[in-house]
Structure formats: structure tokens, C-alpha cells
């Protein structure tokens, strides 16, 4: 059998964070794959929402993005931002929000707006869109991103979406959701210390050394004495991912 890919480990790690019956705001790519995997395994009653106004869609073709009709396919409800971001997310019934990040700092603050080059020149990206809303309001936030030193700095160059700004509690920051819960990278799964609210290692993926993780993280990373290995995908999970969910390897590259 083909060796397990990192993207498969990430998708499975994401899926296992989702509980049956929960409501999830998903983005494109791995979050979508993780949600579908969860639905097909331990969470058949999971509800997936897309911020533009889509409930429980079931794409059969690969979408080019959130605006691609392919991602609306098979939905049980089409509404709009007001319904999904307002009457679900702001309403407080969204359990999990998946986000990506240009940068994520030790307090789980996310930057999706801009990067500063050495020259001082600023380069802009997509901005918040629904990102700040999800980070401010979802009960648990999960970030999926690549593990690189420059992408995991001590402090983000622009705080687009709050985690625990200033290391303060969500309440002190007047934020409703419980903030960042897991950061799933291609090297490890990170969590946050309930006291200091700093990122810490929850588990490291098979074949990755602790030193690799430390060397590729831009902030001091707390590691437990005994570092657990990220549980590898089961045969059934691999079969679903490879044969049913993303057979053409669009996201599980």
C-alpha cells in the first residue's frame, strides 16, 4: 500500500477533532476534506456551512474556490452571509471554524491581510473576509497551515483575526468564542496552554523530530516531556480519502 502522505495525516487529524452532531464552518481544501471524512466515519450528523450561504453541500466536482458553483452542489439550503455568518456564527451555534493563515503567532493570532518585505514594502493578500468573524465567534477555531518559521512568528505583522491577543483571555478581549483550539501543520498538531495561552505541541507527526518542529517555529514552543506521535490514519480512513473523498489527489497532494 502506498505510504501515508502528510496531507492525509493532516486531514485525519482535522477529522478527529470534529464530534458527531457539531456544526462546522469550513473553507476550501483540507478543511472540506476533513469534514467529509468525519461525516463518513464517526460524525454522520455533522453539519457543514459555507459562509456565502451553503448548508451541507456535497460537491462531486472539484471547485476553484468558494465562488465556484461546484461547491454549492447537493446542498440542503442556500441562503447568504446574513444567515451563515449572522444567524449561525454570530448567533453562537457554530462549534468549529476552520481557518487558513499567512501567519499565526504564539497566541494564535492570525494574519491573512499583508506581509512586510525586508525592503519595508507591504504586500497585500485577501484580507479578513469571514476570517475575523469566525475567529471572533466560533466556539473552537482550527487552523490548517504549513509549518514554516516565517509563517509562525513571535507576533503577526497584522492581527487580522484574534486568538488570545496580548496573551489575555477571550473575555478580557471582549471576544465570544473560545478561540484557537488546534493548529494542524504538516509537522505537528499544536494546542494552546489554558494558563499562558501560548501555543504548545500536542503531537508530532510520524517521522518528524521534535528539533525539526522547534527549528521551523518562529516562537518558543512548549513541548511536553513525553511527546505523543500524531495517530496515523486507519486503513479505512485512507481508503475513504483515496478512493472516495479525493481520488484525484486535488487536496491530498
Amino acid at each position, binding site marked *: 500500500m502506498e505510504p501515508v502522505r502528510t496531507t492525509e495525516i493532516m486531514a485525519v487529524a482535522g477529522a478527529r477533532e470534529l464530534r458527531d452532531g457539531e456544526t462546522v464552518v469550513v473553507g476550501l481544501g483540507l478543511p472540506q476534506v476533513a469534514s467529509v471524512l468525519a461525516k463518513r466515519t464517526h460524525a454522520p450528523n455533522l453539519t457543514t456551512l459555507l459562509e456565502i450561504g451553503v448548508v451541507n453541500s456535497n460537491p462531486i466536482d472539484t471547485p*476553484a474556490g468558494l465562488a465556484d458553483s461546484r461547491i454549492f452542489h447537493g446542498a440542503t439550503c442556500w441562503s447568504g452571509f446574513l444567515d451563515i455568518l449572522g444567524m449561525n456564527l454570530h448567533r453562537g451555534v457554530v462549534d468549529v471554524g476552520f481557518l487558513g493563515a499567512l501567519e499565526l503567532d504564539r497566541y494564535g493570532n492570525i494574519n491573512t491581510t499583508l506581509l512586510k518585505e525586508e525592503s519595508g514594502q507591504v504586500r497585500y493578500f485577501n484580507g479578513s473576509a469571514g476570517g475575523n468573524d469566525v475567529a471572533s465567534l466560533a466556539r473552537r477555531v482550527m487552523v490548517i497551515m504549513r509549518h514554516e518559521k516565517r509563517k509562525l512568528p513571535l507576533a503577526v505583522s497584522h492581527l487580522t483575526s484574534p486568538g488570545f491577543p496580548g496573551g489575555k483571555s477571550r473575555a478580557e478581549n471582549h471576544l465570544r468564542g473560545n478561540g484557537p483550539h488546534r493548529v494542524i501543520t504538516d509537522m505537528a498538531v499544536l494546542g494552546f496552554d489554558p494558563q499562558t495561552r501560548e501555543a504548545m505541541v500536542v503531537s508530532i507527526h510520524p517521522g518528524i523530530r521534535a528539533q525539526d518542529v522547534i527549528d521551523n517555529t518562529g516562537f518558543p514552543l512548549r513541548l511536553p516531556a513525553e511527546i505523543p506521535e500524531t495517530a496515523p490514519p486507519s486503513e479505512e480512513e485512507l481508503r475513504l480519502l483515496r478512493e472516495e473523498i479525493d481520488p484525484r489527489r486535488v487536496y491530498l497532494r
Partner: protein
Amino acid sequence: MASKLKDVAEVVRTIPDGASIALGGFAIARNVIAVVHELIRQQKRDLTLSQCVMGMDTDLLVGAGLVRRLIVGGGSLDKFGLVQCVNRARENREVEALDMTSLAVCFAYLAGALGLSFLPIKSLLASEVLERLEAGPGAERVRRISCPFTGEQYVALKALNPDVALVHVQAADEQGNCHIHGPKWENEEQAKAAQRIIVIAEEIVPTDLFRQHPTRTVIPAHRVEAVIHQPFGAHPTAVYSCYDYDSEHLELYVRHARSRDGVRDYIEKYIRGSRNFAEYLEKCGGAARLNSLKADPVLGY
């Protein structure tokens, strides 16, 4: 009832320089490209644009130098890339960008649509998005307040009531009743918040269709000022149940958008160099190309 069917050039002539415009597009879907082209041909100036998620519509208008201010949640061309003209204009401070969030823009429209001068929101707090708004021209649109009942802290958003809303829909009648198939994103709130609603429809249908399915009427005729009938009017962006986005043309646009010269060339060739949208569609491959984009009746794309 009198027909509101109008020609795009005629309608765009009624939009003054400095107008605030709500755009109904989202990334690469249902962009009001036909109107964007005409706005560029008529060289409007100092426009304020608002939108939850900018797409090719806003990128073109900024690239053509028509825009003074943006009130937006974000921007993207999905897999085709970033809104390069917008980002370049930001980087060179050529546009006043009030960057909010998708829900903040949507709530500001909702306030406007309900005739409320403000609406509270729990997003934005403890973020640099809010700090930047407070530090710049965005300061006039946000205030930190607390709930008169619970004391909970909120950001009060000033209502958005754009001068004009431009919304591309699949079907409308001559009076302006509209159907939107697929997700509506912020279309209903932004249209009802605007002083004037201008609808661009792929198809003109009889009013009896709305009488048969009254629950599906998203924008009612009495709020609509003009209806522009323009099949493929959102090309190269997608219109669910009508046609798919045109990957080739989007890639071509993105290549041009990388540089100022490129955008100028694109605008010269495809927009200023076309007397009308029909000529533009011809340059994009005409009927043959458009037919290849037509949606599968079952899948809708």
C-alpha cells in the same frame, strides 16, 4: 405597469462621479461586468465601492483608476489569484481602503436595509482590522459601545446606504422583480440598503412567473429603478444555472493584472476598444466560446 428595461449605457449615464456603489458580485461569481465595462468607457471618477468579498468587478474598476474608496470585507479571484489591481493600489496608497469583515459589511448593509442608522457586532474587537479603521477614514463608520441591557462590549457599525446597488441576477421581469438562484451572499441586504437598485438580468421573464412562486422573489419590483437585459453579462465570471466562469479569460486577465501596463492593455483591448458588451463577447470567442461555457441543466455549472 411601466417597463423598466433600459440600455446599459443609458443607465450608467445616470450614475454621477463620486457615487457610492454596492457591487453584487462575489470573487468570480455574478460580477456585474457589463456595467463595469460601461462605467470604464464613460470614465467615471472618485467612486466608492462596497462589497463583502471583492472580485474581478472591483479589481477592474480600481485598475482603471475610477475608485477613490473601498468598503470591503476581503477580496479574491479564488484559484486564479489575488485582486492584484486592488492590492497594488493599496500598496501605493492610491485608494482609500476601509477593510472590514464580510459580516461587518453585511451588517452595515442590513442596518441600511432596515432604516437603522447603526447595528452592533461582536466581530472586529481586539483586532488590527478595527484599529486601522479607527486610525483612518474608517473612524466615521465604527464606534465602541456597550449593550444598554447587558453591558457587553460591541462595535457599532454605521449603516451603509449606497447611492446605487448593481446586482446581476438570473431572471427578472420588466418591472424589476428578481430571482437569484444559488447562494445570495449579501445581495438582498445590499440592494434594499441602496437608494437606487439597478438589476442586470440574464433573462427577462413574465411577471406571472413571480406570481407562481412569490416566495422566491428576492428583490421586489417596487424597489428597482432599472432592469438591464444582458445575457452573459457577468462573463468571464460564473452565473449559477446559466454558465460557468471562463478559466481561459480569467487567466488572461490575471496575467494582464500583474502590471499597470498589462491592465491598461487589457482595458484598451477588451473594454475601451469595444463599443459595447456584444463586441467584447465577440473578442472573447463569441457564440462558440459562450456555448462551451453554458451550464449543464442538472448541475447548474
